[in-house]
């Protein structure tokens, strides 16, 4: 397999694309005995423009919202063929394909108990169509459909709690990851694959175009989201919070100031306070704060 990587270079992803980095980490952790079902979105478009494909594993794309259902059919077929025990099935999509248009199919797959790992690459807006707001777009984000204006400071809602929604299905494993923590990401993918049943992993993946940051900062910005408490990393096992990545929280401005999508609130103390409130809430809810040695 050395000469046949599972996720090959030469695709048409943007420079600094967090999703392409994460997709490679996921499939390399899952291994060659994996079938991937991909929703419509950036990842599908930039990896499989006919006649080329970046995928070294069996891969199928059907529609925008049905990867979870197609993966259910793939899993059923593998059971029928007696091949399920030796084959992993991954369904993957962006945040819009997961939390909005694909939520029904995902919920069905989770409820039915298919042995499938669902991966949501969360770049926090519809990037493939040009940065429109999704259900996972953060509070106060400037997107093309939640634009900043005289009467608006951007997106009026907080992120839909997708990991909690997945967990509420009573599935054995739910985790959040960040492309800024690649070893943590791969450990969680391997763990998920080792568990039978439906699994949900959501990965924070910066998008230089949509977030308006320099393409060489993807990794650092992803880490800042975690370090400020805006993107908590945690694992649910059998419904219970099993582990969190502890942080010494940095102020949210350190993360927000790196990206054009938040530029409009940097001099707006009132809005900054609200965003800090989102982080503080996460820190409290998931008990993220690292006990400092001195205290």
């Amino acid at each position, binding site marked *: 397999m050395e000469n046949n990587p599972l996720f090959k270079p030469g695709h048409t992803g943007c420079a600094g694309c967090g999703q392409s980095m994460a997709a490679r980490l996921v499939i390399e952790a899952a291994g060659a*005995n994996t079938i991937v079902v991909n929703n419509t979105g950036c990842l599908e478009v930039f990896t499989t423009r006919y006649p080329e494909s970046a995928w070294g594993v069996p*891969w199928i*794309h*059907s529609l925008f919202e*049905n990867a979870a*259902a*197609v993966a259910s*059919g793939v899993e059923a077929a593998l059971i029928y063929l007696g091949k399920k025990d030796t084959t992993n099935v991954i369904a993957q999509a962006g945040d819009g394909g997961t939390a909005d248009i694909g939520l029904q199919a995902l919920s069905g797959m989770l409820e039915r108990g298919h042995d499938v790992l669902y991966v949501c690459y969360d770049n926090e807006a519809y990037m493939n169509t040009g940065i429109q707001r999704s259900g996972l777009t953060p509070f106060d984000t400037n997107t093309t459909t939640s634009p900043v204006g005289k009467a608006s400071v951007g997106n009026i809602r907080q992120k839909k709690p997708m990991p909690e929604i997945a967990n509420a299905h009573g599935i054995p494993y739910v985790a959040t990851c960040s492309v800024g923590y690649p070893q943590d990401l791969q450990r969680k993918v391997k763990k998920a694959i080792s568990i039978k049943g439906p699994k949900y992993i959501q990965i924070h993946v910066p998008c230089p175009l949509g977030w308006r940051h320099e393409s060489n900062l993807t990794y650092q910005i992803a880490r800042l989201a975690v370090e400020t408490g805006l993107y908590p990393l945690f694992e649910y096992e059998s419904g219970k919070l099993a582990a969190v990545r502890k942080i010494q929280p940095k102020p949210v401005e350190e993360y927000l100031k790196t990206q054009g999508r938040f530029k409009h609130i940097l001099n707006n103390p009132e809005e900054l306070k609200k965003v800090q409130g989102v982080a503080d809430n996460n820190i409290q809810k998931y008990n993220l704060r690292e006990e400092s040695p001195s205290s």
Partner: protein
Amino acid sequence: MKEFLEGSRAVAEAVKLCKPGVISAYPITPQTHIVEELAQMVADGELKSQFINVESEHSAASVVLGALACGVRAFTATSSQGLFYMAEVLFNIAGLRLPLVMTCTNRSISAPINIWNDQQDSVSLRDCGFIQLYAENNQEAVDFHLMAYRISEDKSIMLPTMVCMDGFILTHGMESVDMPEQEKVDKFIASYKALYKLDTANPISMGLLADPDYYLETRFAIQETFKDLLKFIPKVSEEFKSNFGRDYKDCLVEEYYTKDAEKIIVAMGSVCGTIKEVVDELRAKGKKVGLLKIISFRPFPYSRVYEILKDAPRVAVLDKAVSLGAYAPLAVEIKAAFFGKKKSPKVISSFIAGLGGRDITLDSVREVFRKLTQREVSLEFIDLKPELLREEYGE
């Protein structure tokens, strides 16, 4: 062996004989009896299929898509709103060249909501890339499912088939059906071998982005296969006859007293049984009338229609669907068969009947023959209730 069965039971038995590895469905009237029967067969261990209960028709179609992509034979069934909810996936299945066989138990479309029979659902999806076969009775419904698997899965075809049967009239109707024997079915339909499939031993990518340099040819290729189907469906029908004894001729159309007929009705589905009764009755009185039953709506057999109807003086097309704001769907095809041709019926009149389950009675058919005069009519609705129209418009 002849059995007295409900149409849904007969279809479920036929599907069982074809041994799909994955079945997925979402309940909708009047499809439910078919999938309930299949679920029971799986529950009783008589059928070794994975039966996947899904949260929507969109996912039912997506599940069977995934199974077929892995090289496993699959089945689903739906109706009406369910078919429309599947529509996006059905176009996708055809584009991916996956040989799904499904049943559409024909039902009207909301609003107003109405669970009874017409053919608006499947007729509206005529462009989705599925072969569409319309059954007149439950024997045909059974036999067409067998032929559908044989046709769809052939390496030269690789396109899905929708077997259409009128909701309630057939699905809930009891009829004597000659059920094929398993051994003969196994011989007629070989186990499914996919040309391409998702397999870790030989990884391929399916469902790629085709830009303007490539997309056009994919549609052209399907269109070419539909041309081939006009020859291939008759070939499979011939095979079917030699295996099971029942003769559907070319299985594209059925002629009923058309040779010398002066008036011919063209129709699809169960109404053809009613029309045959009226034809018998009028023939007994010496009237030269006949029926042309369209079995295959996609591919549409234009040249067969031309050959059969070219010398007929008067033709009435009876649609159980409408294309609101345009000529009726079947009437359009029949008229198109004669465009630019040397011969043509003098009159091709178009009638609409039976929408939303309004019974098409012997009298309704007699009225169509009566209204098929020298004066061509278009979009003539049969069995309208004048008193309701008055109420509606306050005349």
